[in-house]
């Protein structure tokens, strides 16, 4: 199920509904607001109370039975007026304040009507408006100006508070027979989001109404069925060892490799072996002006903007410039990167509140966790552990500070690396992954734990490790440059990152934690090598999972605590378990991140505490 994320007033509205329903196990997909954006407390309460008092599955059946009618919206409005009367009567003894809230809502109705523009008024269904105005007028003790059939309907819609679900449905059937001369049929169709759908249609399809806005609050960044499958379709398989042209392409897209040719040869000889033989590696650092700038220079683009960058930098990459095809491909990629960066930022801005709350919670939880593994530096005190060699000072110089106690200052020796899967399978979750990485990075930054962020993907036989943030950088904003694209040869990427971690800590003085944000679906167009040559077996499915598991085991044997934050589809749950054992946590919403990540790290530290 795709969980929707709500922020700001939407979360408040949702809480009203849940609170009134007395249950939190459903997602209200539509919420009630005034045109000003304020939460419509009363209507949200009524939505929740309907869930509390009735069997919503059965009501959904009823609503479904006439949904193909052109007047379905209008019918919904009438029926919900009736339901409002019914749940009000039912709930009033338990919640006496409802009477006052109803009066407040009636006042709001007329206040809002008076502020509507002429066009807005014209768009309203007058039949519905008449009934609503009459209902709210009566609540305010005003005279109800209805006669004839309208008056009869008005009286009919005062559904009694004694009705149960069956009685309510019978009453609604009578309503249709009495005023519209038809009997709704029972729908055969079974819908998956039945409860949600009833609520949506309840106050949701308010055709042309401006009295309140029912805002669909779903937003991007989530796991969808689309990101489950990525297969090697015909023509996509990359059956040859990468050549110079491929290297030019990688350079054009990502910029120059951080390591020298000699260093890369050593790295590749050590890591590109067995199943990954014939693969290549590329390690790049996030450039000061972003990867786009650096890489665009290499891509040799011709437009004015990038030419300026090229001129300023003074870099001449004529070999690449000559290859217009590569330049074009790289330009497309870089444009995508720039666009994605904007989207990531926008997503974070939109969810700023949730993100800041998650950072607060995660940093508090992690702070406590890491504190357990930090050492308090001793300080001199008047009481504590006596330092025998200084004891003479007591009587000789009357210095009482000859004791040591644990001071407030602490030191710890833990370093965290966050590795992001940047393959195409993450296409539909890019903003979410960037935001989650941002939350983790900012939380660790707050508690002064050094963090490095890397991403990995495989293109044209090159497994590219991109450093998004170095340990020395204070701010985590650079993680918002995260973009998905390419394949993911997890085994090679994991081994490379393990090697990089060890290269930076040759004396093994630090404890390392490697957190991998992954969908546990290793997949590459370059087949698995056999006997040093490219064999016929694809790097996908069970074989690729086995390779990734071997890489993770090797990392753990090397003392790097490795675990996964799983953001994938349920179809890959088995994979994540095979690759990472029990050391993974599944996250579906950013709100779960704080609990999930802190539990995961607690488990890692418990299983193998730092030295």
């Amino acid at each position: 199920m795709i969980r929707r994320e709500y922020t700001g007033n939407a979360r408040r509205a949702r809480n009203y509904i849940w609170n009134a329903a007395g249950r939190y196990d459903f997602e209200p997909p539509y919420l009630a607001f005034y045109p000003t954006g304020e939460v419509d407390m009363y209507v949200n309460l009524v939505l929740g109370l309907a869930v509390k008092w009735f069997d919503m599955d059965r009501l959904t059946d009823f609503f479904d039975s006439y949904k193909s009618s052109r007047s379905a919206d209008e019918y919904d409005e009438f029926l919900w007026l009736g339901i409002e009367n019914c749940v009000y009567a039912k709930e009033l003894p338990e919640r006496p304040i409802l009477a006052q809230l109803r009066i407040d809502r009636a006042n709001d109705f007329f206040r809002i009507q008076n502020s509507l523009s002429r066009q807005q008024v014209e768009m309203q269904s007058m039949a519905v408006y008449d009934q609503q105005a009459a209902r709210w007028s009566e609540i305010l003790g005003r005279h109800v100006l209805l006669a004839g059939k309208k008056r009869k309907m008005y009286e009919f819609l005062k559904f009694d508070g004694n009705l149960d679900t069956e009685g309510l449905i019978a009453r609604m059937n009578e309503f249709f027979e009495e005023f519209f001369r038809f009997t709704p049929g029972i729908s055969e169709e079974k819908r998956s989001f039945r409860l949600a759908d009833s609520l949506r249609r309840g106050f949701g399809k308010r055709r042309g109404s401006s009295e309140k806005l029912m805002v669909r609050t779903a937003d991007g960044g989530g796991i969808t069925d689309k990101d489950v499958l990525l297969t090697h379709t015909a023509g996509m398989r990359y059956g040859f060892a990468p050549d110079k042209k491929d290297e030019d392409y990688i350079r054009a897209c990502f910029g120059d490799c951080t390591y020298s040719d000699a260093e890369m040869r050593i790295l590749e000889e050590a890591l590109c072996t067995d199943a990954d033989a014939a693969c290549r590696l590329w390690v790049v650092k996030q450039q000061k002006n972003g990867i786009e700038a650096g890489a665009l220079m290499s891509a040799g683009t011709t437009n004015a903007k990038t030419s300026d960058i090229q001129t300023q930098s003074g870099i001449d990459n004529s070999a690449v410039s000559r290859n217009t095809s590569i330049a074009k491909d790289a330009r497309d990629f870089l444009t995508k990167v720039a666009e994605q960066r904007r989207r990531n930022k926008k997503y974070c801005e939109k969810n700023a509140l949730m993100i800041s709350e998650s950072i607060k919670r995660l940093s508090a939880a992690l702070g406590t966790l890491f504190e357990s593994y930090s050492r308090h530096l001793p300080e001199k005190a008047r009481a504590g552990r006596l330092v025998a060699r200084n004891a003479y000072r007591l009587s000789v110089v009357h210095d009482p500070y000859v004791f040591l106690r644990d001071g407030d200052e602490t030191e710890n020796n833990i370093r965290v690396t966050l590795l992001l899967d940047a393959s195409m399978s993450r296409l539909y979750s890019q903003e979410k992954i960037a935001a989650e990485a941002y939350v983790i990075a900012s939380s660790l930054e707050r508690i002064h734990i050094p963090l490095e962020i890397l991403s990995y993907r495989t293109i044209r036989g090159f497994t590219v490790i991109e450093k998004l943030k170095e340990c020395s950088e204070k701010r985590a904003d650079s993680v918002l440059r995260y973009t998905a694209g390419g394949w993911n040869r997890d085994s090679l990427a994991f081994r490379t990152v393990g090697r990089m971690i060890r290269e930076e800590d040759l004396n093994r003085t630090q404890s390392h934690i490697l957190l991998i944000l992954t969908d546990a679906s290793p997949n590459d167009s370059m087949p698995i090598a056999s006997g040093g040559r490219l064999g016929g077996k694809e790097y996908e499915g069970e074989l690729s999972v086995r390779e990734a598991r071997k890489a993770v085991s090797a990392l753990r044997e090397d003392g790097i605590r490795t675990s996964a934050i799983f953001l994938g589809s349920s179809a890959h749950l088995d994979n994540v378990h095979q690759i990472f054992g029990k050391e993974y946590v599944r996250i579906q919403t950013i709100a779960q991140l704080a609990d999930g990540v802190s539990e995961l790290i607690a488990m890692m530290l418990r299983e193998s505490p730092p030295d």
Partner: protein
Amino acid sequence: MGDILDFLREEGVSENLIRGAEDFRARYPVSDEYRDRIPDPQYYYYGKETWEMALAVLLAGRNLLLAGPKATGKNVLCENLAAVFGQPVWNVSFHINMDASYLIGTDTFDGTKVTFRPGPIYLCADRGGFGVLDEINMAKNESLAVLHSALDFRRAIDVPGYDLIRVKPQTRFIGTMNYGYAGTRELNEALSSRFAILSVPEISETDLDRLIRRSFPDINPKICTQFVKLFMELMRKTEKAEISDRALDLRGLLDALSLIREGLTAGQALRMCIVDKTFDAYEQSLIMDVVKARIPAELDGTIVFG
């Protein structure tokens, strides 16, 4: 308040256990020096089953660990238990920087020589009474290792360089812990195995209603119900992690009623004692929404009481 044993009888707690507590009182009288450490509870804990389990554990000479979320009355129960057994209380509030020297004692200089200044666990073991280890899981497990010998069958504390302290037979240790709290950690097996662990359930609607009515006998019953339901709604919201548990404050709810009696409106009192317990403005608005859907802001003492 009256004798807490009468309250236990009213609650229907097993007479055997109550008699056991009376025998305990008689067997281990408290000297005048520590009599003022025996609590005189302001609130009683409600929950017959929890009472019976706790009394049985302490009568059997075991230590008790009360585990449960916020606002379940763990500290009230600790205080009540000490009152039932008529024993002085030695309180230790655990924190992250807690170490062995804080618990057992530390060297200090008294102006002429280095002396040993006993800590609360030492005093509790040596003088007898109930040691309340509040929020025990706030401390690091390794700092608590010094308690192992005091808590298990050895019932002794060996203070290096000083003495072997035998734990008095009437001494019991009662730990409290909250799993989900910020700053808490899991107890290791070595420590948790030395306690009988009692999961303190969340207060039920009926028990909360009785608690409020016992504390405020003149409260209007219908309004009392609304305050109870408000608390239950906040509890549910906390369970579902929609709000933090800062506002889930039973003491706060009782304080709010006291303030209403003093002349504040319900809106003002609940804001001070419940809503503003959290400092996050957004969370405050979520809590305020629950309050607004339950209690009229202008409600005052003349309506709530009498």
